[in-house]
């Protein structure tokens, strides 16, 4: 038995032939699920037009979209990679804290509001990208700004010296507006 080589293993099954040179290459994003989830709303904020273009192309070319939409796909990937790169450049600490929190909490966004607020603020200050949830009801506080989440395992505790939260915190854009005239 020991003399028998394993044949159908992962290593052998890789097909590593690269794309032909006629198709421009693009570096893949290379992020795993938690960083992507953490950055998703910023990717959506900056890359919405590219994403929509790509999805429209795919809808208009059923069954052939894989080949017809390569250009749009490259744009989507470049745009998302630029967002991830910018977040890494400006808000690396906050970003890491948030996605590691997501990794530790089964990717449940509502368990990680505090790191998320810090990340959102940093990203808004540096990149002017803001998390907004489309189609959410206008008469309710957006769910990512509520300070008393019902389903979180632990209540959101204040930092030492921080004034008490109200029912919700302000979105980063409102915070920036409030602090701008004062300074």
């Amino acid at each position: 038995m020991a003399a028998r080589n394993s044949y159908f293993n992962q290593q052998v099954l890789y097909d590593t032939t690269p794309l032909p040179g006629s198709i421009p290459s693009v570096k893949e994003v290379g992020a795993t699920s938690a960083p992507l989830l953490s950055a998703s709303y910023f990717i959506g904020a900056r890359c919405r037009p590219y994403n929509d273009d790509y999805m429209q192309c795919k809808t208009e070319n059923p069954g052939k979209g894989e080949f017809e939409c390569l250009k749009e796909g490259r744009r989507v990937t470049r745009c998302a990679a630029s967002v991830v790169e910018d977040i890494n450049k400006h808000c690396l600490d906050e970003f890491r804290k948030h996605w590691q929190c997501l990794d530790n909490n089964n990717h449940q966004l509502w368990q990680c509001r505090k790191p998320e607020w810090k990340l959102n603020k940093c990203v808004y200050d540096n990149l002017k990208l803001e998390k907004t949830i489309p189609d959410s009801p206008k008469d309710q506080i957006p769910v990512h700004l509520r300070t008393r989440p019902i389903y979180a395992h632990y209540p959101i505790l204040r930092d030492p010296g921080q004034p008490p939260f109200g029912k919700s915190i302000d979105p980063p854009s409102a915070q920036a507006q409030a602090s701008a005239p004062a300074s």
Partner: protein
Amino acid sequence: MPQDMPPTGGYGPVQYKRNLPANGFRPAALVIGMGAIMTYGFYKLAQGTKERNELAREKMWSRIHLIPLLQAEEDRDLVRRHLADQAREKELLGENFKVYNSDRYVRPTFAVTPANVTK
């Protein structure tokens, strides 16, 4: 012989009614209390449902923002494998057979098993 007669003044009253102490609140108070507790419970339930809906919306939109990115990466990989397949077929058989009676792209059923270790 004198007949048996009731005692003078008649018999005493016979106790036939239930004579149990009525413990606890009055029924009206119980109904009102139950109504209050249940109203509060349903109010909390509705709040929770609303928040769950919003959380679901948040999760769904985060996924919507990511789908084009993931799909684009997958598509590029499929195209790469398809073109490599076609080239391999051409090299081995001399021409590319049209296997399906359709122009749609069909994901391959069989994977290549390269003879040499490629990675």
